[in-house]
């Protein structure tokens, strides 16, 4: 099986599972998974394909959630416009932060992105229209395209699912585009890419902005789904969680981040009763998985499939 065929199968599986999901599990749970899966996939575009570890991605998720909340609640815009507004703000933030951080690498890059995210957190706490500690409550889901009322969970689910598929498709397309190939070359050997005439900083910046934009889309959808935006969406815990989901599922794989998101959300859901032990248990699972599956769950499965079907190297 070729890489392209494998990807086609992954797609088919994903579309089918996604279509059936709201009849198999609670729609709100499924939607929450979709939002975080998109978030993790957007993060993976940056970490897995550009080799950049951002520790501030909550800023994009969270700011988009707030912007969408405000536009839907105070202006009563159609849902998709609220989502677009949130995404646009995250994209701009990504452009500004990226332009300032992109020439740093490794731990410095991570720290600068964390610093910016803390700045966003501070603003959200201080600004008058964000609801401070309480967050934004009671965001209306509104009407999609001005006609389709998103009042039922199933309708909302398919709206969110369509947006997720669009975002997910864009990420996969970017990875397998001419741009994606340059990005991979830069990750593999930056000086060499530079010596071939590629302005590496510009390519990284574009990857960063794309990642921020799609993280924003995830945040906007999340605000629509849960009907609130809260400080936890801009908190650095979120930035850490997305690293965890990506590594758990398998960085640099198509489905890995989504699998990681599913796992983390499931754990958090089913362990909600045990209170603060959630963090400890998630941490333990994370450590166990990283020790057992260095490439993440999907990364290990992929290596296994390649060994058995292609006879090639992982």
């Amino acid at each position, binding site marked *: 099986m070729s890489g392209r065929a494998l990807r086609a199968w992954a797609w088919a599986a994903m579309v089918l599972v996604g279509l059936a999901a709201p009849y198999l599990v609670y729609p709100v749970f499924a939607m929450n998974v979709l939002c975080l899966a998109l978030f993790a996939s957007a993060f993976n575009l940056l970490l897995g394909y550009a080799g950049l570890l951002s520790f501030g991605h909550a800023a994009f998720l969270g700011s988009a959630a707030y912007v969408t909340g405000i536009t839907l609640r105070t202006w009563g815009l159609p849902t998709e416009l609220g989502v677009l507004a949130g995404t646009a703000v995250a994209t701009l933030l990504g452009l500004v932060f990226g332009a300032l951080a992109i020439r740093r690498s490794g731990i410095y890059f991570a720290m600068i992105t964390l610093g910016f995210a803390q700045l966003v957190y501070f603003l959200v706490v201080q600004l008058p229209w964000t609801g401070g500690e309480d967050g934004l409550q009671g965001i209306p889901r509104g009407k999609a395209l001005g006609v389709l009322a998103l009042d039922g969970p199933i309708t909302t689910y398919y709206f969110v699912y369509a947006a997720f598929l669009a975002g997910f498709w864009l990420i996969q397309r970017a990875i397998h585009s001419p741009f994606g190939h340059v990005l991979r*070359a830069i990750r593999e050997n930056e000086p060499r890419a530079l010596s071939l005439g590629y302005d590496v900083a510009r390519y990284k910046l574009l990857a960063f902005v794309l990642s921020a934009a799609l993280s924003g889309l995830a945040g906007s959808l999340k605000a629509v789904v849960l009907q609130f935006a809260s400080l936890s969406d801009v908190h650095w815990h979120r930035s850490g969680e997305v690293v965890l989901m990506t590594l758990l599922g398998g960085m640099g794989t198509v489905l890995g981040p989504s699998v990681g998101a599913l796992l983390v959300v499931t754990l958090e859901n089913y362990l909600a009763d045990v209170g603060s032990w959630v963090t400890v248990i998630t941490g333990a699972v994370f450590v166990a998985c990283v020790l057992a599956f260095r490439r993440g769950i999907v990364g290990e499965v992929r290596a296994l499939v390649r060994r058995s079907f292609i006879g090639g190297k992982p």
Partner: protein
Amino acid sequence: MPEETILETRDLVKEFAGFVAVNGVSLRVARGSIHALIGPNGAGKTTVFNLLTRFLPATRGAILFKGDDVTHARPAEVARRGIVRSFQMSAVFPALTALENVRVALQRPLGTSFHFWRSERTLDALEARAVELLAAVGLEADRDTVAVELPYGRKRALELATTLALDPELLLLDEPTQGMGHEDVGRVVALIRRVAAGRTVLLVEHNLSVVQDLARRVTVLARGAVLAEGSYDEVSRDPAVLEAYIGATP
């Protein structure tokens, strides 16, 4: 008739925190020639390459390529103008196949390298040319081998194929035969002679018989400064060179 100069440096200086690694180097490389830069370890040869390709900013001095001042150009721009380097440590994209390595270099002129919405299938059009380049360095059988798995000599050949994909006017080769067995050295020498047709090569090389074989002009660097310049025969008879360079290597 005086030869046309393709690359000129004027009083190039590079200081690292007070330590002068390159000390007033003025070079003239004639178009179409193979010009060697030799000197003992630590003489500053790789640093000169880093200055020429703008991987490092020069402390003082000027660099002129085809008469244009490129002293302050960005590294990617220098490459696009036609100065392409190889690295002392082989520089391939390890997780990409040999074909993909070469294709990345071919891709830039398409002008679609920022197009994240386009399918990678648009790159298939480059495959024929990539295969041709691989064949030119004897790697046609390795086209689908991941670069990290190629033996050392082939990695260097792949690096050369990738460099040639840009069709550079000026090729900077940093110790292309380093770490190679006798047979590989012979192959690389033949390869360099072949690819030098129609372009200029500035070559850093430790193996003096390779230098003697290939280079029309030789510049000897010692402790960051030019010690001598001339044909191989001229510099190899120069007493200062014998003392600083040949005397220093057993």
